[in-house]
C-alpha cells in the first residue's frame, strides 16, 4: 500500500503532518503573555493584516464621515457663500447710495455756492474716440440747457455744452484740444487761457496747458488756477486745477501745465448753468 502512494504525494503529506504536529505542539507550549506559542504565532502573523484591515476600515469610515461632513460643510459653505453674496450686494448698494448721497451733497453745496440758476444732470456717455474729449448728459433744451452753457462738477470746471437736443446735450470737456477757458492764477492774479492737452498717452497724465502767461510772471507749482470770467462762458472764481509744471517756454511765454481738478473719467453728475452767456458786466468785475 505504501508503495502505491506516489512519491510526490508523500512529500505533501509529510509537510502537512509536520505542520500539524508543530501546531499541536505549539498550542501546548506557553509562548508568554498568557498565550500559547500557536496563538502567539497566529497573532503575530495576522496582527499586521488586521492592522492593515483596521486602517482600511478606519480610513473608509473616516472617509465616509469626512464625506458626510464635507457634504454638510459643502452645503453650509454654499449657504454661507450665498449669504455673503447677498450681503456684499447689499453693501455695494448701500455704499453706492452713500457715495451718491455724498456726490449729491457736494453738488448741492456747489449749487449754493454758484450764484446762478443751475440744473443737475447725469453723465450718460463719454467720449469714444481718442481725438476729442466730450461727455453726453441727460438734460437738454427741454430742461433749460442752452448752447455754450458752462458745466461744472463739485471738484472743478468740466466744460461747456456744444451740441444740444431736447433731452440730452453734449459737453466739450476742458481737456479737448479745441476747448478753452479764461483763467487766473489765484495767488498772483496772473491771467491766461487753459486748453486741452498737447498729446495724450505720452506721460499718462492729461494736463491742461496754461497759455499766454508772460515769461516773468509769478506762477509756481501748486498754484490754484480759477476761472476769470473773461471768456463770458464760465462764471468767475471756479476752480480749474493746480499748476503741475512750470517751464521755460518758447519765446516770451512760459510753458505751464495745469492738473485739472475735475475727475473727468469718473464724473457721474454735473451741474449745468442755465444761462448760456454771462452778462458782459460779470467779467468786468474781475479785479
Amino acid at each position, binding site marked *: 500500500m505504501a508503495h502505491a502512494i506516489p512519491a510526490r504525494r508523500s512529500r505533501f503529506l509529510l509537510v502537512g503532518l509536520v505542520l500539524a504536529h508543530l501546531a499541536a505542539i505549539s498550542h501546548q507550549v506557553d509562548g508568554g503573555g498568557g498565550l500559547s506559542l500557536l496563538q502567539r504565532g497566529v497573532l503575530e502573523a495576522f496582527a499586521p493584516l488586521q492592522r492593515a484591515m483596521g486602517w482600511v476600515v478606519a480610513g473608509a469610515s473616516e472617509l465616509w464621515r469626512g464625506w458626510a461632513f464635507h457634504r454638510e460643510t459643502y452645503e453650509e459653505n454654499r449657504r454661507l457663500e450665498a449669504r455673503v453674496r447677498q450681503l456684499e450686494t447689499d453693501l455695494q448698494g448701500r455704499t453706492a447710495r452713500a457715495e451718491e448721497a455724498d456726490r449729491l451733497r457736494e453738488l448741492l453745496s456747489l449749487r449754493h455756492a454758484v450764484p446762478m440758476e443751475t440744473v443737475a444732470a447725469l453723465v450718460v*456717455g463719454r467720449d*469714444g474716440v481718442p481725438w476729442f474729449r*466730450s461727455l*453726453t448728459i441727460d438734460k437738454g433744451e427741454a430742461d433749460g440747457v442752452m448752447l455754450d452753457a458752462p458745466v461744472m462738477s463739485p471738484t472743478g470746471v468740466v466744460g461747456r455744452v456744444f451740441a444740444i437736443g431736447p433731452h440730452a446735450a453734449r459737453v466739450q470737456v476742458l481737456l479737448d484740444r*479745441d476747448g478753452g477757458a479764461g483763467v487766473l492764477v489765484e495767488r498772483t492774479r496772473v491771467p491766461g487761457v487753459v486748453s486741452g492737452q498737447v498729446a495724450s498717452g505720452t506721460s499718462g497724465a492729461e494736463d491742461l496747458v496754461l497759455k499766454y502767461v508772460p515769461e516773468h510772471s509769478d506762477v509756481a507749482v501748486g498754484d490754484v488756477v480759477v476761472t476769470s470770467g473773461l471768456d463770458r462762458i464760465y462764471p468767475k472764481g471756479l476752480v480749474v486745477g493746480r499748476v503741475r509744471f512750470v517751464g521755460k517756454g518758447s519765446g516770451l511765454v512760459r510753458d505751464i501745465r495745469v492738473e485739472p481738478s475735475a475727475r473727468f473719467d469718473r464724473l457721474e453728475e454735473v451741474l449745468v448753468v442755465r444761462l448760456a452767456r454771462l452778462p458782459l458786466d460779470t467779467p468786468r468785475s474781475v479785479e
Partner: protein
Amino acid sequence: MSRAVWTGLAIAGAVLVETALGYLVPAPGRYLDPFLLVAIYCSLVGGEMHGMLAGGAAGWVQDTLFGGRVLGLSALSKLLVGFAAGLAGGRFMIASAAARALVILLATTADALLVQWLASVFSLEVTVLPPLAFASRATLNALVGGLLFAVVDRRRERALP
C-alpha cells in the same frame, strides 16, 4: 432679415459697447473702435458698396454720440476705409483670421491718419496720438476684431441650412 437691418443692429451694438467701455474703462476704451469693426466686417462680407455705406453710417453715429464739436470726420474716414476694405476684399482672399486681423490693423491705421489729416485740413484741434498709442489702437482693434469676426462667421455658418 435684410442686410441693412443687420448693419443697423451692428451699429446699435457698437453704440452699446462704446457706452459701456466709456463707463468701465474710459481711457483704454477710447482705443477700441467698434464702429470701425462694423464697417470693416460689412466691407469684407458685402463688398465695397456695403462697406462704404456701413462705414459712413457708423461714422455718423460715432461722430454724433462720441465725437467732437465738428461732425463728419469719423464718418468720412470710415466711409473711405469701408470702401477700400471692400475693394481689397473683392480682389484678395481675405478669409483667414490672420488676414482679417491684418486688414483691421491697416484699416485702423488708415482711419486714424485720415481723421488727423482731415482735422488738419479743416484746421480743427484734435488730440494727436503718439506713435505708441497709434500702434496700441491698431493692435487692439486687430485682435478684438479678428476674434469677433471669427465668432460671427461661425455663428453665420451654423445658421445656414
